[in-house]
Protein backbone atom coordinates (compact mmCIF):
# COMPACT_ATOMS: atom_id res chain seq x y z
CA UNK A 1 0.00 0.00 0.00
CA UNK A 2 1.44 3.36 -0.97
CA UNK A 3 1.71 6.19 1.52
CA UNK A 4 -0.95 8.31 -0.13
CA UNK A 5 -3.53 5.56 -0.18
CA UNK A 6 -2.74 4.85 3.47
CA UNK A 7 -3.36 8.49 4.22
CA UNK A 8 -6.58 8.40 2.28
CA UNK A 9 -7.79 5.44 4.25
CA UNK A 10 -6.96 7.30 7.47
CA UNK A 11 -9.01 10.35 6.48
CA UNK A 12 -11.96 8.10 5.66
CA UNK A 13 -12.59 7.95 9.41
CA UNK A 14 -13.40 11.63 9.20
CA UNK A 15 -16.71 10.58 7.70
CA UNK A 16 -19.10 10.62 10.67
CA UNK A 17 -20.84 7.44 9.62
CA UNK A 18 -17.65 5.48 9.15
CA UNK A 19 -16.35 6.89 12.43
CA UNK A 20 -19.45 5.75 14.33
CA UNK A 21 -19.40 2.31 12.77
CA UNK A 22 -15.72 1.80 13.59
CA UNK A 23 -15.80 3.19 17.12
CA UNK A 24 -18.81 1.07 17.99
CA UNK A 25 -16.73 -1.98 17.18
CA UNK A 26 -13.53 -0.98 18.98
CA UNK A 27 -15.02 0.80 22.00
CA UNK A 28 -15.73 -2.34 24.09
CA UNK A 29 -12.09 -3.33 23.66
CA UNK A 30 -10.92 0.02 25.02
CA UNK A 31 -13.36 -0.08 27.94
CA UNK A 32 -12.30 -3.59 28.97
CA UNK A 33 -8.58 -2.98 28.49
CA UNK A 34 -8.62 0.29 30.43
CA UNK A 35 -10.58 -1.30 33.28
CA UNK A 36 -8.13 -4.21 33.38
CA UNK A 37 -5.02 -2.02 33.30
CA UNK A 38 -6.40 0.36 35.93
CA UNK A 39 -7.49 -2.48 38.21
CA UNK A 40 -4.13 -4.21 37.97
CA UNK A 41 -2.09 -1.03 38.25
CA UNK A 42 -4.01 0.46 41.16
CA UNK A 43 -4.24 -2.77 43.18
CA UNK A 44 -0.59 -3.54 42.55
CA UNK A 45 0.38 0.02 43.41
CA UNK A 46 -1.73 0.38 46.55
CA UNK A 47 -1.30 -3.02 48.16
CA UNK A 48 1.83 -4.65 46.82
CA UNK A 49 4.45 -1.92 46.92
CA UNK A 50 6.43 -0.96 50.02
CA UNK A 51 5.98 2.40 51.74
CA UNK A 52 8.50 5.03 50.80
CA UNK A 53 11.16 5.46 53.49
CA UNK A 54 10.58 9.21 53.58
CA UNK A 55 7.02 9.79 52.42
CA UNK A 56 5.38 6.72 54.00
CA UNK A 57 2.22 5.40 52.39
CA UNK A 58 1.30 8.92 51.18
CA UNK A 59 3.45 8.26 48.15
CA UNK A 60 0.87 5.84 46.80
CA UNK A 61 -1.32 8.65 45.57
CA UNK A 62 1.26 8.87 42.79
CA UNK A 63 -0.72 6.17 40.97
CA UNK A 64 -3.55 8.64 40.46
CA UNK A 65 -1.66 11.91 40.48
CA UNK A 66 0.93 11.27 37.79
CA UNK A 67 -1.32 9.57 35.19
CA UNK A 68 -4.00 12.25 35.67
CA UNK A 69 -1.44 15.02 35.23
CA UNK A 70 -0.10 13.28 32.14
CA UNK A 71 -3.56 13.08 30.60
CA UNK A 72 -4.44 16.66 31.59
CA UNK A 73 -1.65 17.89 29.33
CA UNK A 74 -2.05 15.30 26.59
CA UNK A 75 -5.78 15.99 26.33
CA UNK A 76 -4.98 19.62 25.57
CA UNK A 77 -2.35 18.55 23.02
CA UNK A 78 -4.92 16.30 21.39
CA UNK A 79 -7.39 19.20 21.26
CA UNK A 80 -4.69 21.35 19.69
CA UNK A 81 -4.04 18.71 17.04
CA UNK A 82 -7.71 18.09 16.23
CA UNK A 83 -8.35 21.85 16.15
CA UNK A 84 -5.57 22.24 13.59
CA UNK A 85 -7.04 19.39 11.53
CA UNK A 86 -10.42 21.13 11.62
CA UNK A 87 -8.94 24.46 10.54
CA UNK A 88 -6.92 22.91 7.71
CA UNK A 89 -9.06 20.04 6.45
CA UNK A 90 -12.55 20.98 7.72
CA UNK A 91 -13.43 17.52 9.03
CA UNK A 92 -16.34 17.94 11.41
CA UNK A 93 -15.43 14.83 13.38
CA UNK A 94 -12.10 16.41 14.25
CA UNK A 95 -13.73 19.51 15.72
CA UNK A 96 -16.22 17.39 17.63
CA UNK A 97 -13.41 15.22 19.00
CA UNK A 98 -11.76 18.36 20.36
CA UNK A 99 -15.04 19.36 21.96
CA UNK A 100 -15.46 15.86 23.40
CA UNK A 101 -11.95 15.81 24.88
CA UNK A 102 -12.23 19.11 26.76
CA UNK A 103 -14.38 18.02 29.73
CA UNK A 104 -12.32 14.83 30.08
CA UNK A 105 -9.14 16.89 30.14
CA UNK A 106 -10.66 19.30 32.65
CA UNK A 107 -11.62 16.44 34.98
CA UNK A 108 -8.11 15.00 34.66
CA UNK A 109 -6.75 18.42 35.63
CA UNK A 110 -9.02 18.51 38.69
CA UNK A 111 -7.88 15.01 39.69
CA UNK A 112 -4.26 16.05 39.31
CA UNK A 113 -4.86 19.20 41.40
CA UNK A 114 -6.82 17.47 44.17
CA UNK A 115 -4.46 14.52 44.46
CA UNK A 116 -1.58 16.98 44.37
CA UNK A 117 -3.11 18.86 47.30
CA UNK A 118 -3.71 15.63 49.23
CA UNK A 119 -0.13 14.52 48.56
CA UNK A 120 1.25 17.91 49.43
CA UNK A 121 -0.57 18.25 52.75
CA UNK A 122 1.61 15.85 54.80
CA UNK A 123 4.71 16.67 52.75
CA UNK A 124 4.59 20.47 52.83
CA UNK A 125 2.24 20.88 55.77
CA UNK A 126 -0.33 22.79 53.73
CA UNK A 127 -3.17 21.88 51.37
CA UNK A 128 -2.25 24.40 48.75
CA UNK A 129 1.11 25.77 47.87
CA UNK A 130 1.68 28.19 44.96
CA UNK A 131 4.19 25.82 43.58
CA UNK A 132 4.91 26.41 39.85
CA UNK A 133 3.76 22.98 38.75
CA UNK A 134 0.46 23.09 40.65
CA UNK A 135 -0.07 26.69 39.59
CA UNK A 136 0.47 25.76 35.94
CA UNK A 137 -2.19 23.10 36.24
CA UNK A 138 -4.55 25.58 37.82
CA UNK A 139 -4.00 27.91 34.86
CA UNK A 140 -4.49 25.00 32.46
CA UNK A 141 -7.80 24.33 34.19
CA UNK A 142 -8.86 27.94 33.57
CA UNK A 143 -8.05 27.46 29.87
CA UNK A 144 -10.22 24.35 29.80
CA UNK A 145 -13.05 26.31 31.43
CA UNK A 146 -12.85 29.11 28.88
CA UNK A 147 -12.68 26.68 25.98
CA UNK A 148 -15.75 24.74 27.13
CA UNK A 149 -17.68 27.94 27.92
CA UNK A 150 -17.03 29.25 24.40
CA UNK A 151 -18.34 26.01 22.85
CA UNK A 152 -21.48 26.27 24.98
CA UNK A 153 -22.08 29.93 24.20
CA UNK A 154 -22.28 29.73 20.39
CA UNK A 155 -25.31 28.33 18.59
CA UNK A 156 -23.94 27.80 15.09
CA UNK A 157 -21.79 24.64 15.30
CA UNK A 158 -19.38 25.60 12.50
CA UNK A 159 -18.81 29.06 13.97
CA UNK A 160 -18.26 27.49 17.38
CA UNK A 161 -15.75 25.01 15.92
CA UNK A 162 -13.81 27.79 14.17
CA UNK A 163 -13.72 30.10 17.18
CA UNK A 164 -12.80 27.42 19.71
CA UNK A 165 -10.08 26.12 17.39
CA UNK A 166 -8.46 29.53 17.18
CA UNK A 167 -8.85 29.92 20.95
CA UNK A 168 -7.17 26.54 21.43
CA UNK A 169 -4.23 27.60 19.25
CA UNK A 170 -3.78 30.97 20.91
CA UNK A 171 -4.45 29.44 24.33
CA UNK A 172 -1.73 26.84 23.80
CA UNK A 173 0.85 29.53 23.20
CA UNK A 174 -0.27 31.48 26.25
CA UNK A 175 -0.44 28.34 28.41
CA UNK A 176 3.18 27.61 27.50
CA UNK A 177 4.12 31.23 28.21
CA UNK A 178 2.34 31.04 31.56
CA UNK A 179 4.29 27.90 32.39
CA UNK A 180 7.59 29.75 31.97
CA UNK A 181 6.27 32.87 33.65
CA UNK A 182 5.17 30.84 36.66
CA UNK A 183 8.57 29.16 36.87
CA UNK A 184 10.19 32.56 36.86
CA UNK A 185 7.77 33.83 39.50
CA UNK A 186 8.25 31.03 42.04
CA UNK A 187 10.99 28.43 42.03
CA UNK A 188 8.87 25.96 43.96
CA UNK A 189 9.06 22.87 46.18
CA UNK A 190 7.69 20.33 43.75
CA UNK A 191 9.70 17.24 43.08
CA UNK A 192 10.85 17.22 39.47
CA UNK A 193 8.99 15.21 36.85
CA UNK A 194 11.12 12.25 37.69
CA UNK A 195 9.08 9.60 35.96
CA UNK A 196 9.65 10.35 32.34
CA UNK A 197 13.42 10.84 32.43
CA UNK A 198 15.50 7.78 31.70
CA UNK A 199 18.12 9.00 34.13
CA UNK A 200 15.56 9.29 36.88
CA UNK A 201 14.43 5.72 36.53
CA UNK A 202 17.94 4.36 36.73
CA UNK A 203 18.75 6.88 39.43
CA UNK A 204 21.86 8.07 37.64
CA UNK A 205 21.15 11.79 37.54
CA UNK A 206 19.28 12.46 40.77
CA UNK A 207 18.72 11.17 44.22
CA UNK A 208 14.99 11.74 43.80
CA UNK A 209 14.55 8.72 41.62
CA UNK A 210 11.34 6.77 41.38
CA UNK A 211 12.55 3.26 41.96
CA UNK A 212 11.48 0.35 39.79
CA UNK A 213 9.28 -1.06 42.53
CA UNK A 214 7.04 1.99 42.15
CA UNK A 215 7.65 2.53 38.47
CA UNK A 216 6.12 -0.61 36.96
CA UNK A 217 2.69 -0.33 38.59
CA UNK A 218 2.80 3.38 37.74
CA UNK A 219 3.45 2.53 34.11
CA UNK A 220 0.47 0.16 34.14
CA UNK A 221 -1.70 2.92 35.62
CA UNK A 222 -0.52 5.40 32.98
CA UNK A 223 -1.41 2.98 30.19
CA UNK A 224 -4.77 2.46 31.87
CA UNK A 225 -5.42 6.21 31.98
CA UNK A 226 -4.46 6.59 28.31
CA UNK A 227 -6.85 3.80 27.34
CA UNK A 228 -9.59 5.26 29.51
CA UNK A 229 -9.07 8.66 27.91
CA UNK A 230 -9.27 7.20 24.40
CA UNK A 231 -12.42 5.27 25.28
CA UNK A 232 -14.08 8.32 26.83
CA UNK A 233 -13.17 10.60 23.92
CA UNK A 234 -14.35 8.12 21.28
CA UNK A 235 -17.58 7.60 23.19
CA UNK A 236 -18.18 11.30 23.69
CA UNK A 237 -17.31 12.10 20.08
CA UNK A 238 -19.96 9.58 19.03
CA UNK A 239 -22.47 11.37 21.26
CA UNK A 240 -21.51 14.74 19.77
CA UNK A 241 -21.89 13.36 16.23
CA UNK A 242 -25.36 12.05 17.02
CA UNK A 243 -26.31 15.40 18.60
CA UNK A 244 -25.10 17.22 15.50
CA UNK A 245 -27.12 14.89 13.32
CA UNK A 246 -30.26 15.42 15.37
CA UNK A 247 -29.83 19.20 15.08
CA UNK A 248 -29.16 18.95 11.35
CA UNK A 249 -32.31 16.88 10.88
CA UNK A 250 -34.36 19.37 12.92
CA UNK A 251 -32.99 22.28 10.88
CA UNK A 252 -33.82 20.40 7.70
CA UNK A 253 -37.34 19.87 8.98
CA UNK A 254 -37.75 23.60 9.63
CA UNK A 255 -36.49 24.56 6.17
CA UNK A 256 -38.48 21.84 4.43
CA UNK A 257 -41.83 22.79 5.91
Amino acid at each position, binding site marked *: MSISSKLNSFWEYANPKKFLATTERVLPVFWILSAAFLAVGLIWGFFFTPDDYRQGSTVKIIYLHVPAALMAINAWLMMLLTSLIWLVRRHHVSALAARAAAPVGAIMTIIALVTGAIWGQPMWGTWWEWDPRLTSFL*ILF*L*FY*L*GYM*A*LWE*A*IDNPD*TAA*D*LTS*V*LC*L*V*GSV*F*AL*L*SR*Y*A*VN*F*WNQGLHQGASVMRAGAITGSDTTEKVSNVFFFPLLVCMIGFVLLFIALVLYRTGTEIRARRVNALLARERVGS
Partner: protein
Amino acid sequence: MIALLLRDLKLALRAGGGFGLGLAFFLIVTVMVPFSVGPESTLLSTIAPGVLWLGALLACLLSLDRLLALDWEDGSLDLLATAPLPLEAVVTIKALAHWITTGLPLVLAAPILGVLLNLSPSGYAALVTSLLLGTPALSVIGTFGAALTVGLKRGGLLLSLLVLPLYVPTLIFGSEAARRGALGMDISTPLLMLAGITAACVALLPFASAAVLRVNLR
Protein backbone atom coordinates in the same frame (compact mmCIF):
# COMPACT_ATOMS: atom_id res chain seq x y z
CA MET B 1 -6.53 54.07 9.14
CA ILE B 2 -5.92 57.44 10.76
CA ALA B 3 -9.60 58.22 10.12
CA LEU B 4 -10.67 55.12 12.04
CA LEU B 5 -8.36 55.96 14.94
CA LEU B 6 -9.62 59.53 15.09
CA ARG B 7 -13.23 58.38 14.92
CA ASP B 8 -12.73 55.89 17.76
CA LEU B 9 -10.99 58.49 19.92
CA LYS B 10 -13.75 61.01 19.20
CA LEU B 11 -16.42 58.44 20.07
CA ALA B 12 -14.69 57.61 23.33
CA LEU B 13 -14.44 61.28 24.33
CA ARG B 14 -18.03 62.23 23.47
CA ALA B 15 -20.93 61.68 25.84
CA GLY B 16 -21.64 58.04 26.56
CA GLY B 17 -18.30 56.98 25.14
CA GLY B 18 -17.16 55.63 28.45
CA PHE B 19 -13.86 57.49 28.55
CA GLY B 20 -12.67 57.81 32.13
CA LEU B 21 -14.81 54.96 33.43
CA GLY B 22 -11.78 52.67 33.53
CA LEU B 23 -9.82 55.35 35.32
CA ALA B 24 -12.56 55.83 37.90
CA PHE B 25 -12.75 52.08 38.42
CA PHE B 26 -8.97 51.95 38.95
CA LEU B 27 -9.25 54.69 41.57
CA ILE B 28 -12.12 52.99 43.40
CA VAL B 29 -10.45 49.57 43.48
CA THR B 30 -7.28 51.14 44.87
CA VAL B 31 -9.24 52.99 47.53
CA MET B 32 -11.07 49.81 48.51
CA VAL B 33 -7.85 47.86 49.11
CA PRO B 34 -6.92 49.47 52.46
CA PHE B 35 -10.51 48.93 53.62
CA SER B 36 -10.17 45.21 52.95
CA VAL B 37 -6.63 44.54 54.20
CA GLY B 38 -6.28 47.22 56.89
CA PRO B 39 -4.52 50.57 56.99
CA GLU B 40 -1.11 49.29 58.14
CA SER B 41 1.38 51.17 55.97
CA THR B 42 4.10 48.49 55.78
CA LEU B 43 1.59 45.92 54.52
CA LEU B 44 0.17 48.36 51.98
CA SER B 45 3.62 49.26 50.80
CA THR B 46 4.42 45.56 50.30
CA ILE B 47 1.36 44.80 48.23
CA ALA B 48 1.16 48.16 46.39
CA PRO B 49 2.89 47.11 43.11
CA GLY B 50 0.75 43.99 42.76
CA VAL B 51 -2.49 45.74 43.68
CA LEU B 52 -1.85 48.56 41.24
CA TRP B 53 -1.07 46.10 38.45
CA LEU B 54 -4.15 44.04 39.19
CA GLY B 55 -6.30 47.18 39.38
CA ALA B 56 -5.01 48.41 36.04
CA LEU B 57 -5.63 44.99 34.50
CA LEU B 58 -9.21 44.85 35.76
CA ALA B 59 -9.89 48.41 34.63
CA CYS B 60 -8.64 47.39 31.18
CA LEU B 61 -10.86 44.30 31.20
CA LEU B 62 -13.91 46.33 32.17
CA SER B 63 -13.98 48.33 28.95
CA LEU B 64 -13.32 45.45 26.56
CA ASP B 65 -16.90 44.40 25.88
CA ARG B 66 -17.60 47.80 24.28
CA LEU B 67 -14.51 47.59 22.11
CA LEU B 68 -16.16 45.86 19.15
CA ALA B 69 -19.73 45.28 20.35
CA LEU B 70 -20.94 48.82 19.53
CA ASP B 71 -19.60 48.65 15.99
CA TRP B 72 -21.15 45.21 15.66
CA GLU B 73 -24.60 46.36 16.78
CA ASP B 74 -24.89 49.34 14.45
CA GLY B 75 -23.51 47.47 11.44
CA SER B 76 -20.23 49.42 11.21
CA LEU B 77 -18.21 46.20 11.39
CA ASP B 78 -19.98 44.77 8.33
CA LEU B 79 -19.21 47.95 6.43
CA LEU B 80 -15.60 48.06 7.65
CA ALA B 81 -15.15 44.44 6.56
CA THR B 82 -16.23 45.37 3.03
CA ALA B 83 -14.06 48.51 3.03
CA PRO B 84 -10.59 48.60 1.45
CA LEU B 85 -9.04 48.41 4.92
CA PRO B 86 -7.76 44.92 5.86
CA LEU B 87 -9.51 43.59 8.96
CA GLU B 88 -6.10 43.03 10.59
CA ALA B 89 -5.54 46.79 10.40
CA VAL B 90 -9.02 47.46 11.78
CA VAL B 91 -8.45 45.35 14.90
CA THR B 92 -4.98 46.83 15.40
CA ILE B 93 -6.38 50.36 15.23
CA LYS B 94 -9.20 49.38 17.57
CA ALA B 95 -6.65 48.01 20.06
CA LEU B 96 -4.57 51.17 19.73
CA ALA B 97 -7.61 53.37 20.34
CA HIS B 98 -8.46 51.24 23.38
CA TRP B 99 -4.94 51.65 24.71
CA ILE B 100 -4.93 55.42 24.22
CA THR B 101 -8.30 55.88 25.92
CA THR B 102 -7.87 53.25 28.67
CA GLY B 103 -4.30 51.98 29.01
CA LEU B 104 -2.44 55.26 28.81
CA PRO B 105 -4.59 57.08 31.42
CA LEU B 106 -4.08 54.11 33.75
CA VAL B 107 -0.31 54.36 33.33
CA LEU B 108 -0.42 58.08 34.10
CA ALA B 109 -2.72 57.65 37.10
CA ALA B 110 -0.79 54.75 38.65
CA PRO B 111 1.91 56.87 40.40
CA ILE B 112 -0.76 59.04 42.03
CA LEU B 113 -2.56 55.98 43.32
CA GLY B 114 0.82 54.62 44.40
CA VAL B 115 0.96 57.45 46.94
CA LEU B 116 -2.33 56.23 48.44
CA LEU B 117 -0.88 52.76 48.88
CA ASN B 118 2.40 53.98 50.33
CA LEU B 119 4.50 52.66 47.43
CA SER B 120 8.19 52.89 48.26
CA PRO B 121 9.94 55.81 46.47
CA SER B 122 12.20 53.54 44.43
CA GLY B 123 9.14 51.77 42.96
CA TYR B 124 7.55 54.57 40.92
CA ALA B 125 9.82 54.38 37.89
CA ALA B 126 9.52 50.60 37.70
CA LEU B 127 5.73 50.74 38.11
CA VAL B 128 5.26 53.28 35.31
CA THR B 129 7.74 51.57 32.99
CA SER B 130 6.22 48.13 33.49
CA LEU B 131 2.68 49.45 32.97
CA LEU B 132 3.77 51.38 29.90
CA LEU B 133 5.29 48.22 28.42
CA GLY B 134 2.53 45.88 29.56
CA THR B 135 -0.76 47.69 28.94
CA PRO B 136 -0.47 47.54 25.12
CA ALA B 137 -0.40 43.73 25.43
CA LEU B 138 -3.52 43.92 27.62
CA SER B 139 -5.34 45.92 24.93
CA VAL B 140 -4.27 43.63 22.07
CA ILE B 141 -5.13 40.42 23.95
CA GLY B 142 -8.41 42.00 25.01
CA THR B 143 -9.23 42.83 21.39
CA PHE B 144 -8.78 39.16 20.57
CA GLY B 145 -11.22 38.25 23.35
CA ALA B 146 -13.67 40.91 22.18
CA ALA B 147 -13.48 39.57 18.62
CA LEU B 148 -14.19 36.04 19.89
CA THR B 149 -17.31 37.08 21.79
CA VAL B 150 -18.59 39.92 19.60
CA GLY B 151 -21.66 38.13 18.26
CA LEU B 152 -22.87 36.86 21.61
CA LYS B 153 -25.60 38.15 23.83
CA ARG B 154 -24.28 38.45 27.39
CA GLY B 155 -20.74 38.05 26.08
CA GLY B 156 -19.25 40.18 28.86
CA LEU B 157 -18.78 37.50 31.49
CA LEU B 158 -17.53 34.98 28.94
CA LEU B 159 -15.10 37.61 27.70
CA SER B 160 -13.56 37.87 31.19
CA LEU B 161 -13.34 34.10 31.48
CA LEU B 162 -11.52 33.87 28.14
CA VAL B 163 -9.25 36.88 28.52
CA LEU B 164 -8.08 36.60 32.13
CA PRO B 165 -6.08 33.36 31.66
CA LEU B 166 -4.42 34.98 28.62
CA TYR B 167 -3.41 37.90 30.86
CA VAL B 168 -1.43 35.66 33.24
CA PRO B 169 2.06 35.98 31.68
CA THR B 170 1.72 39.76 31.26
CA LEU B 171 0.54 40.15 34.85
CA ILE B 172 3.32 37.96 36.24
CA PHE B 173 6.17 39.74 34.48
CA GLY B 174 4.64 43.19 34.85
CA SER B 175 3.95 43.02 38.55
CA GLU B 176 7.24 41.20 39.15
CA ALA B 177 9.08 44.13 37.57
CA ALA B 178 7.08 46.60 39.66
CA ARG B 179 7.66 44.55 42.84
CA ARG B 180 11.39 44.25 42.25
CA GLY B 181 11.57 47.95 41.53
CA ALA B 182 9.88 48.73 44.83
CA LEU B 183 12.43 46.52 46.62
CA GLY B 184 15.26 48.30 44.84
CA MET B 185 16.28 45.18 42.89
CA ASP B 186 17.31 44.83 39.27
CA ILE B 187 14.26 44.85 37.03
CA SER B 188 15.78 44.28 33.61
CA THR B 189 14.89 40.56 33.28
CA PRO B 190 11.13 40.79 33.90
CA LEU B 191 11.00 44.01 31.94
CA LEU B 192 12.64 42.38 28.93
CA MET B 193 10.27 39.42 29.15
CA LEU B 194 7.33 41.81 29.39
CA ALA B 195 8.54 43.77 26.36
CA GLY B 196 8.95 40.51 24.46
CA ILE B 197 5.41 39.41 25.25
CA THR B 198 4.00 42.78 24.25
CA ALA B 199 5.96 42.84 20.99
CA ALA B 200 4.88 39.31 20.07
CA CYS B 201 1.23 40.04 20.94
CA VAL B 202 1.15 43.25 18.91
CA ALA B 203 2.80 41.53 15.96
CA LEU B 204 0.84 38.27 15.87
CA LEU B 205 -2.47 38.50 17.69
CA PRO B 206 -4.17 40.89 15.21
CA PHE B 207 -4.11 38.03 12.69
CA ALA B 208 -5.97 35.77 15.11
CA SER B 209 -8.38 38.59 16.03
CA ALA B 210 -9.14 39.32 12.36
CA ALA B 211 -9.64 35.62 11.65
CA VAL B 212 -12.19 35.15 14.44
CA LEU B 213 -13.88 38.42 13.54
CA ARG B 214 -14.33 37.18 9.97
CA VAL B 215 -15.89 33.99 11.33
CA ASN B 216 -18.23 36.01 13.53
CA LEU B 217 -19.30 38.30 10.69
CA ARG B 218 -20.45 35.58 8.34
